């Protein structure tokens, strides 16, 4: 039986998961910016190259909103809470399972797919070529004191040897990025002096050398190539019209 059937006899979690796809596709309106992910496969932490890290960021954002309300708001305004050092180009929907969204950091456009989303959490998974091969879960829960605790938890490896070599810098940038995201989320709920707690753990010290060739999808390299070939594309377009 198709677990996503409308008869409702499928698993309880069926509507929360993205449907299986072999390749990531961006919507037509985002295609001009989606050249780094269009047609790429999903690449979770086991498909990356570098050491595997588990990073957890938490922030107590008080009692003003329930976990469900904060997550609904987070899904609806996800891009608004991103720090200015990055851009998130969501689709018209509010982070629904299977959505593909474009994101850029440091001028390198890439993206994510929404793997899972329920009332209190949602998870992104990365495509090939992204800086990291990762599962990133955003969630909220009620703390013992009755407040709402927002959390960002990720399991990630750098995708290829180039990004791994840059990891001391990229990892630091990510650290700042996610702290600011939680700061912005808290501020949107009226908490301006939030303390973000962070915990980083190396889950696997090995580098997966069998995946070194991921470098062929490296979004940084493709972005440079895309920029250099821009005049050619422009000329071809003019010729076609």
């Amino acid at each position, binding site marked *: 039986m198709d677990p996503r059937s409308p008869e409702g006899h499928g*698993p309880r979690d069926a509507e929360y998961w993205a449907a299986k*796809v072999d390749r990531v596709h961006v919507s037509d309106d985002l295609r001009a910016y989606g050249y780094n992910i269009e047609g790429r496969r*999903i690449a979770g932490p*086991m498909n990356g190259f570098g050491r595997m890290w588990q990073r957890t960021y938490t922030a107590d954002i008080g009692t003003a909103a329930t976990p469900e309300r904060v997550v609904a708001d987070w899904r609806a305004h996800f891009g608004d809470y991103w720090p200015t050092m990055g851009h998130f180009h969501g689709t018209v929907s509010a982070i629904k399972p299977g959505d593909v969204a474009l994101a850029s950091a440091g001028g390198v456009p890439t993206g994510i797919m929404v793997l*899972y989303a329920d009332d209190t959490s949602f998870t992104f998974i990365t495509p090939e070529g992204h800086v990291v091969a990762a599962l990133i879960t955003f969630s909220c829960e009620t703390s013992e004191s009755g407040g709402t605790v927002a959390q960002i938890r990720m399991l990630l490896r750098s995708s290829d040897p180039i990004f791994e070599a840059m990891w001391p810098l990229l990892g630091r940038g990510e650290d700042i990025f996610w702290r600011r995201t939680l700061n912005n989320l808290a501020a949107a709920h009226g908490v301006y002096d939030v303390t973000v707690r962070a915990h980083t753990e190396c889950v696997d010290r*090995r580098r997966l050398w069998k995946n070194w060739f991921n470098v062929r999808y490296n979004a940084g390299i493709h972005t440079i190539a895309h920029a250099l070939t821009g005049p050619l594309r422009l000329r071809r377009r003019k010729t076609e019209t």
Partner: protein
Amino acid sequence: MPPHEATMAVVPLAGAAAAIAITGDVTAACEHELMTLHEQATDSGAKLIVLDFAGMEYMNSGGIGMLVTLLVRCQRRQQKLVATGLTEHYRQIFELTRLDEAISLHDDIDQALAAP
């Protein structure tokens, strides 16, 4: 809907193999118990760890993350990790996340034991 608690148990199998039978809801909250049971199976000398999901009723993305962590632990100990009893829905999640490339999927424990 709040998740129901998962229950897990180690089942010794023939040869250097052990199954971890999982029933109920698989979330990140199960991580400590799953890792403890994996240690138990490792202490018994298991080189093949079979995750038996026949009784699983629900899994969220935290469950997938937990399996990635378990997979790393198994690889560190030169153990093979396989999964059995997954419904079509959960098989598709394994395929979507490409976990099936690292954790081979079998219909049942006998098939997993017979696999090369």
